[in-house]
C-alpha cells in the first residue's frame, strides 16, 4: 500500500524506476529507523510522503543522479500491461507526454502537483509535508497546472 505511494512519488520526481526504487527503499529504511520520531498527530502516509519528498528533492539538488535512461518507463509499462497493443500505444503516448511534462516542471512545482493531482493530498497536507505556507502551495500548484496545460494542449479535447 504505502510502498506504491512512496515509489510513485519517487518515480514522478526522479523520472527513473531504478533510481526511484533506491530512493523509496531508502525512505522506508529512514522511516524504520526513525519510527520513534513519528508523531501520532500526523498521518503515517503524510510522514512517509514528507520523508520521500525531502529525499527526492535532496537527490535532485545534489546532482548525484544517474542519467535517466530514455524509454525505460514505457518499456516497463509495456511489459507489465496486458491490454491491446493499440490501446497500449495510445495510452503510453499520453502517459509519456504526461510524464515528460511533469518531469520538465521545476522541482518545487513538480512535487506539489504530484502530491496533489497524482497522490490526492489536500493543500493542508501538502503544506505539512513540504513544510510550506498554504499560500505558497496554492500558487505553486497553479503555476504547475498552467505549465502542464500548455504542454499537454494537444491531448486536451
Amino acid at each position, binding site marked *: 500500500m504505502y*510502498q*506504491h*505511494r*512512496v*515509489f*510513485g512519488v519517487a*518515480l*514522478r520526481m526522479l523520472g527513473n*524506476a531504478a533510481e*526511484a*526504487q533506491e530512493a*523509496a*527503499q531508502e525512505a*522506508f*529504511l529512514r522511516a*524504520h529507523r526513525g519510527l520513534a520520531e513519528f508523531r501520532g498527530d500526523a498521518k503515517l502516509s503524510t510522514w512517509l510522503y514528507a520523508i520521500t519528498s525531502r529525499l527526492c528533492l535532496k537527490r535532485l539538488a545534489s546532482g548525484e543522479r544517474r542519467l535517466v535512461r530514455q524509454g525505460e518507463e514505457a518499456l516497463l509499462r509495456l511489459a507489465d500491461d496486458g491490454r491491446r497493443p493499440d490501446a497500449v500505444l495510445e495510452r503510453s503516448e*499520453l*502517459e509519456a507526454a*504526461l*510524464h515528460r511534462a511533469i518531469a520538465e516542471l521545476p522541482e518545487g512545482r513538480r512535487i506539489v*502537483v504530484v502530491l*496533489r*493531482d*497524482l497522490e490526492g493530498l*489536500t*493543500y493542508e497536507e501538502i503544506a505539512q509535508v513540504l513544510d510550506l505556507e498554504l499560500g505558497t502551495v*496554492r*500558487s505553486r*500548484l*497553479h503555476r504547475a*497546472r*498552467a505549465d*502542464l*496545460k500548455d504542454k*499537454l494542449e494537444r*491531448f*486536451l*479535447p
Partner: protein
Amino acid sequence: MTCHDTRESLSAFLDAALAPDERREVEAHVDGCAECRRELERLQQTVALLHRVEPARAPVGFVDRVAAAARPLPWYRRAAAAVFLPLSVKLPVEATALVMVALLAVYVFERTPALQEAAREQAPRQEPGAQLADESRQFEPSVRRPAPTQSAPPARSTAPEPRSQDRRDPSTYRDDSRPPVPVPAPAAPVPAEPPPAAAPPPVAATPPPAAKPEAPSETTVGRGARPETESRQESVGRAADSVRAAPAAPRLAAKRAQPPADVIARVAVKDRDAAEHELTRLIARVGGTATQRRREDDTTVLEALIPQARYAEFSQGLAQIGTWQVEAERGDLPAQVRVILRLQ
C-alpha cells in the same frame, strides 16, 4: 476581480480550496468572462488528464528487499553500536571492569599487608631473636663461656667462618635452614675478627651486648632446671617461638621455615668420628634422614628427622653409641621428630 486575479485562483477554485466569499467572486467573474471560463475548462481538463495517470506500483519484491535491508544493520553501524551505544551493554562492561579492578586491589592488599606487617614486626622480634642465642646457650652450659674470649681464633680454624656469624645474626637462620638453638658458641665473632675494620655488620654486632645482661639469670635457670623436663620443654617451646619469630628479614622464608628442634640431646662419646658414623647408620636404620652435620673443635652437631614411631628404637640405638643426655624435649612429639645431637 480582474482576469489576472481570477486566473490565479482558478486552480484553488477547482479544488474547492477557496474561502466562500472568494469563491463567489471567482464564480461571478467566470460567469461574465468567456476567456477566463475557457481557461478554467482547460485547466479542468488538464487536471482530468493528470488524474488519468495510473498510479505507479512498486516493483515486485520491493517490500521483501526493504525488509531484508531493514533487518541486518551494516557492519559499521553494528560496530558503532557496540562501541558507543546502548547502556545495557556499556554498563555491565564497566561494572565488570570495576569488579576486576577491585579484585586486583584486594589481591595486592592481601599481599602487601603481609609484607608490611612483617616489616613492622621486624624490629620488636629481633630482640627475641637475640635472646634465642642466649637461650640456646642454656642447653649447653658446659660450653658456655664468658662471651668474647681469646679461644676463638683457634676455633675459627676448624669451624667455617660464616657459621659463627650466622649464629649471631638471627635473620640468617632460616636461609641456612639450620636450627639456631643448640649451637655451641665457641667464638664471639665481633672481637674475633682479625682486622677490626672487617667487623661484622651492625645487626650482627647488636645481639651480644643486649644478651649479656640477661645471661647470668638465664644461665642459672638453665643449670638449675636441667634435670626438670618441664622446664626444658618450656625452654624448647620458648626457643621454638623465638625461632618462629626470629627470622624477620627473610619474612617470606619464615612462612615455609622448618619447625624448631623437638629433642636436643648431648651424647658423650669416646671417638666422635666413629660415633658419627654409627649414628648415621642408626638414623638410616630407623628410616630417618640426617639434615645437618657440623663439626666444631670439640663438638659435632648432627641434626636429623626421625619418624616418631621409631623414635624409641632410635633412642635405644643411641644409648649404645654413647652416654646421651636429653637437654630439651618437646612433650608431644610430632610424626617427624626433629632431633639435634651434640656429639662430644
